[in-house]
């Protein structure tokens, strides 16, 4: 009885080992792991990259839905091979630099600093997905007459109760709420700040549950929900150029990668991104469909 069992066990073990070796040999190519954050633009970029790479002989593997800090950790520790990051995020949050620079200088600075960590910044796109604060254009007495962040700061300092919908990260980042408060010289009362999932801030503002919402500049819902973006008159927010980040080793092993990603990067700007985001968030099309249509229309993949 036991002898039979042992024989069966050995046979299974040998079979498994053979299977693993064979599959290992067949798929000798290592996958390219694409990481991304959780909001629509990031999901679109991950999907577009995945489809683009697959059409060019690579094996993409997507890991989506991470917070910025987690994504950065994953890239630095080689758990992912690439992602699409924003220049300002790296400057202020990852590299802890507080001085503001032009978009070109911001890009140059993060490229230089991150190169030391083995992270290569490829060509930046023209899409600047900065943080912004938005209000409803009409029917809100709480924010009537407020068009700039200075005016907002003044109103809050003057004791006006203005509620703010933010995501989980913003109150914890130096280029987020703490930095904004310090820069404009005000303190938003804790009771007026409602934290929620990133995508829900738009709904909260539209449904009149808050007075101000944190938005991303290239989100299609700003136009669709008739929001007004408050002007950053003192230029607190840095430039946030959407750029591919790839680990140096991966780039060295796959030189074709740089060319492909740069080609995609060159096709993106604020309007294009807003349009693509709107198709997912407002028209409710799937991320896969929007990504595929875009790649085909830009002739990055064959029809």
């Amino acid at each position, binding site marked *: 009885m036991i002898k039979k069992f042992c024989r069966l066990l050995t046979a299974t073990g040998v079979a498994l080992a053979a299977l693993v070796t064979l599959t290992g040999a067949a798929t000798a190519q290592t996958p390219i792991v694409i990481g991304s954050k959780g909001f629509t633009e990031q999901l679109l970029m991950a999907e577009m990259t995945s489809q683009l790479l697959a059409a060019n002989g690579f094996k993409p593997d997507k890991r989506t839905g*991470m*917070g*910025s*800090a*987690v994504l950065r*950790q994953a890239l630095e520790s080689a758990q992912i091979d690439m992602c699409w990051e924003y220049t300002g995020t790296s400057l202020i949050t990852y590299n802890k630099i507080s001085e503001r620079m032009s978009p070109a200088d911001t890009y140059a600075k993060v490229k230089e600093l991150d190169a030391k960590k083995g992270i290569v910044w490829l060509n930046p796109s023209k899409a600047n997905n900065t943080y912004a604060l938005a209000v409803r254009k009409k029917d809100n007495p709480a924010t009537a007459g407020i068009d700039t962040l200075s005016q907002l700061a003044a109103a809050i300092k003057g004791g006006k109760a203005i509620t703010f*919908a933010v*995501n*989980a*990260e913003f*109150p*914890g*980042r130096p280029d987020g709420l703490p930095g904004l408060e310090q820069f404009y010289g005000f303190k938003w009362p*804790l*009771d007026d700040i*409602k*934290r*929620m*999932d990133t995508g*829900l801030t738009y*709904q*909260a503002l539209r*449904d009149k*549950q808050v007075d101000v919402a944190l938005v991303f500049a290239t989100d299609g819902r700003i136009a669709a929900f008739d929001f007004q973006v408050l002007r950053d008159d003192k230029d607190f927010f840095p430039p946030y150029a959407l750029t591919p980040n790839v680990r140096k080793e991966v780039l060295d092993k796959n030189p074709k990668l740089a060319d492909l990603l740069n080609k995609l990067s060159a096709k993106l700007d604020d309007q294009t991104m807003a349009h693509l985001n709107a198709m997912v968030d407002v028209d409710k099309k799937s991320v896969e469909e929007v990504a595929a249509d875009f790649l085909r229309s830009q002739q990055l993949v064959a029809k």
Partner: protein
Amino acid sequence: MSGILSGTLVAIALALWLWLGGLLPGIWQQAPLVEHLLWPHLYLVAVSSGIAIVLGVSAGIVLSRPRFRDHAEASMQAINIGNTVPTLAVLALAMSVLGIGSTAAIVALAVHSVLPIARNTFAGITAVPASTIEAAAGMGMTEGQILRRVEIPNALPAILAGVRTAMVINAGTAPLAFLIGGGGLGELIFAGIDLFDPAMMLAGAIPSSLLAIALGSLVGGLAKRMTPRGIAFARA
């Protein structure tokens, strides 16, 4: 006794790990935010548990009535859906109907924790020996009096066990309310995950867990005290 011993050992191990990992100062830093979020969190748990108890006990009693008993199992399966469907799905469904905010979160939490109460109420009442009911009827009690003075007191240990389970499930699930804008300690947990800040995460997770444990012990103690002596004697 062994429960208290093992609980204390676990608490000591946790405290040691936190201290050695240097996480304690970080957790302590979040104290103002914890205090700010604790009351909305308690409100979520309290109201949703209250709704679940009222609905669950009522459903359990109604289904145990002789004319409904045969269809009880089918109805139980219907209630079971609220429990089997993944919590996130229940929250998302509530959000799509009621919009974001604490109302949707309360409804979702209540729906998710109704089953243990309903099932235990039903089981407790139907477990009352037929001889006891007959004796009560023989003494001239009406159906209503039998329910109030015989069935429910006998079923109380089972009902309270169901309430205890439901409240612990509820307190454990409440952090997810953050995802649909329901607020509560989940804010700290999810912010901690996104910002890769273990201290922040724990500052949210530890009070939530303590709440679940406290509620469990509270209801457990209440159950011991509320069980009429005659029943306790019979159970023992």
